[in-house]
């Protein structure tokens, strides 16, 4: 039987002991010639290892894949065009910082990488303490101690190379270049992917980053392409020098963050940023710390917002009284008080919760922590079939699903992007918070923060399970590379965080003034008409509609008022609260009391309702964005139907399981 051939390239900076390592691996089984078309020596050799035929190619030394010299062009072209099965990146252990720059570029090629920490004996002699385990964890590649000149570590190195070649799917990494540059890369990718033959040969993201870095060889690659004129036009609109420098800076940021973690003696003194990273990116503590901080964020949101919410509610109640003072009871007074002020006012009462949550997320983002959160979550994301890049849109989804779905534009792979879009509505956006705050506050009181935290976790779990399901059934494939980004930690300034909070939160206010106002008027009309019926009563249009829907939601313990509120919640999730406020016909202060007094409501029903609201539908605006981003009514419809089915099943599970823990409904 023929042995399987694995092609392995040895890459690295000049003078890192690559040739001695090559000699130690291949022994006498070498062939020396020239690379085609250039006078650069090509050395290759074949050996048999673990039953595989290993074809080893020693590439010319290069500091970077942005090729300038003939040697560098040969090395880069082989890695990109020939696509070896594995690259063994030979690193000089006595000069990690300089060597890691090429590592960041090699990781971007998408070829599995194994690091040979060569000349380790010299680095150990001078007292360097390099943790190969930590290095492997940070870069997510195997790191093997080698001494090429003595032939040490060769078997382990080849074992690791064979293992990487046979591992599928391979977890790829890329560098996150920051929002501004990533936006340009995404635009460039959009243009490049129109030439399928081009991007089949060279990955779009890789080509886009090389073009932005002014790589002449990358420009040659697109010379004959149909998209060349468009690329040229695009480059006239941007300052490439600015992006080139920014991209190099980002690579050095990553190196600066990793180096103190893997080699404590390679840095003169660990700074505060390095010390924090040592803990929050720890393999075992990273995720628990992230979960604890997220709970803290929700607890703070719920607690601190209370006096602000009370103030707004009191203000709205006073406004209602002032506006309708002296007016005769009738349709107009009812419209102003119950429809406009009652509906919109209810929703405005939750502005403090939303803005405080957004402020906390802005502080975490501005401090540099969120980039680390993405890093620690990456392995988990990959394990469930989601690309690491999906984490940021999912985090943004905690604020609002609309910008979150739009943020998936940075994901190149269509399937990855589609999966991220489809699961994003399960990330609990700020608009759902008013529903949680109301029901958790009324029915769970002291445990409200915990219940809300649990709902957020449930959303994440459902998103993860759904992604796994989609990946293994309707959208099979391999996740796209993880974007590594490690900006240094900074103390966020009040102004920066407030601006970020306002940018995201103002959308909620605009909705309160637009969609929610409109819905409040419609709900009021349905609750009032036909004229003369009891407000929101069974004979009103709302009552009739609710009673029609009630059989569908009755197994979940929901009555007709909730059925109507959920229907209107499709416009915007926060409308559920506004609609209930109108349907119960109570003022802002009275909604909690009205719910407690309603015999059909209880802790279990409230929990089922919160779970249903979390999962049941993307809101109208999100749905429009899903249609726009996927370009497909089929996927938009799928998102809606899938959400309703999952929500129904989850709420039903709550109805049957929750009584064992929290008493009857």
């Amino acid at each position, binding site marked *: 039987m023929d042995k399987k051939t694995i092609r392995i390239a040895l890459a690295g900076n000049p003078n890192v002991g690559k040739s001695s390592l090559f000699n130690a691996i291949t022994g006498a089984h070498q062939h020396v010639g020239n690379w085609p078309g250039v006078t650069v020596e090509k050395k290759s050799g074949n050996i048999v290892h673990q039953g595989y035929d290993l074809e080893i190619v020693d590439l010319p030394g290069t500091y970077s894949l942005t090729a300038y010299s003939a040697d560098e062009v040969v090395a880069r072209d082989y890695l990109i065009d020939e696509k070896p099965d594995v690259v063994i990146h030979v690193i000089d252990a006595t000069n990690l910082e300089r060597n890691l720059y090429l590592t960041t570029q090699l990781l971007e090629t998408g070829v599995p990488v194994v690091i040979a920490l060569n000349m380790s004996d010299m680095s150990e002699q001078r007292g360097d*303490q390099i943790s190969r385990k930590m290095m492997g964890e940070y870069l997510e590649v195997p790191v093997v101690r080698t001494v090429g000149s003595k032939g040490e570590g060769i078997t382990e190195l080849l074992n690791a190379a064979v293992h990487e070649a046979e591992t599928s799917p391979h977890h790829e990494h890329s560098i996150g270049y920051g929002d501004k540059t990533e936006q340009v890369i995404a635009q460039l990718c959009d243009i490049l992917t129109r030439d399928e033959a081009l991007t089949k040969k060279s990955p779009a993201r890789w080509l886009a980053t090389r073009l932005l870095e002014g790589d002449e060889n990358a420009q040659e690659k697109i010379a004959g392409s149909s998209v060349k004129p468009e690329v040229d036009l695009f480059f006239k609109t941007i300052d490439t020098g600015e992006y080139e420098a920014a991209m190099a800076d980002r690579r050095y940021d990553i190196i600066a963050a990793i180096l*103190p*973690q893997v080699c*404590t*003696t390679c840095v003169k003194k*660990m*700074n*505060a*940023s*390095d*010390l*924090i990273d*040592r*803990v*929050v990116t*720890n393999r*075992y*503590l990273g995720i*628990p*710390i992230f*979960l*604890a*901080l997220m*709970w*803290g964020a929700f*607890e*703070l949101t719920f*607690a*601190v*917002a*209370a*006096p602000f919410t*009370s*103030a707004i509610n*009191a203000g709205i109640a006073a406004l209602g009284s002032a506006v309708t003072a002296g007016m005769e009871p009738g349709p107009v007074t009812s419209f102003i008080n119950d429809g406009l002020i009652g509906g919109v006012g209810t929703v405005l009462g939750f502005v403090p919760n939303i803005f405080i949550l957004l402020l906390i997320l802005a502080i975490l983002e*501005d*401090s540099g922590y969120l980039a680390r959160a993405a890093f620690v979550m990456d392995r988990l994301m990959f394990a469930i079939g989601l690309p690491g890049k999906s984490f940021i849109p999912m985090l943004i989804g905690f604020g609002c699903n609309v910008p979150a779905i739009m943020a998936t534009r940075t994901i190149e792979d269509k399937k990855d992007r589609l999966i991220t879009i489809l699961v994003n509505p399960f990330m609990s956006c700020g608009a759902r918070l008013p529903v949680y705050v109301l029901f958790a506050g009324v029915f769970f*009181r*002291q*445990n409200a*923060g*915990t219940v809300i*935290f*649990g709902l957020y976790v449930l959303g994440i779990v459902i998103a993860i399970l759904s992604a796994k399901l989609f990946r293994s059934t309707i959208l099979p494939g391999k996740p796209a590379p993880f974007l590594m980004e490690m900006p*240094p*930690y*900074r*103390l*966020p*300034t009040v102004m*920066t965080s407030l601006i970020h909070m306002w940018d995201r939160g103002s959308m909620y206010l605009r909705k309160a003034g637009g969609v929610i106002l409109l819905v409040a008027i419609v709900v009021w009309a349905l609750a009032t008409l036909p004229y003369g019926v009891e407000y929101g009563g069974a004979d009103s249009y709302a009552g009739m509609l609710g009673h029609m829907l009630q059989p569908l939601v009755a197994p979940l313990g929901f009555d007709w008022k909730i059925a109507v509120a959920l229907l209107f919640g499709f416009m915007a999730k926060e409308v559920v609260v506004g609609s209930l406020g109108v349907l119960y016909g109570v003022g802002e202060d009275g909604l*909690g*009391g009205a719910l*407690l007094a309603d015999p059909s409501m209880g802790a279990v029903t409230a929990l089922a309702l919160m779970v249903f609201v979390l999962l049941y539908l993307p809101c109208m605006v999100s749905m429009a964005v899903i249609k726009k981003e996927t370009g497909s009514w089929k996927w938009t419809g799928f998102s809606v139907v899938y959400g309703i089915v999952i929500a129904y099943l989850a709420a039903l599970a709550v109805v049957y399981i929750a009584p064992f823990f929290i008493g009857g409904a």
Partner: protein
Amino acid sequence: MIFAALLGAIYAVFGVVQILAGILPDLAAALEPYFIPGDIVQGFVLCVIGLVFLYGTAEMHAHRAGSEAFLYVGLLLSLAFGIIMLLDICATGIDTAVFGEDGENTWELVSFAVPMLYLAVFSVIGFAAWGRKFTEGLASA
């Protein structure tokens, strides 16, 4: 190292007890006079803080460079969650004082005497001793 070990053990024990009390109502009732309410999530957070300190203790014991990071971050986490609890008290107090009590939502100082708050006092001492040096290294965004 001793400080980290002690604080780590205290946080971990209180965390486990809070989780158990959150699961077992009888234990929660028995622990109520000792200001340890049953709460699974708060218990989890205490355990996380405790583990950070204990992990740091092991790292310091092994003389690993940068192991003091676990003490600093443990202190920061402990203080951050203590502040969250303190803000909870203040916000509820203001809400009750200005807008009145709402049914069961009364302001009782004793209901806020939770481990996450009173254990943070130890971290204030620790932060006063070692924390300033650490935070000085952070620049503004």
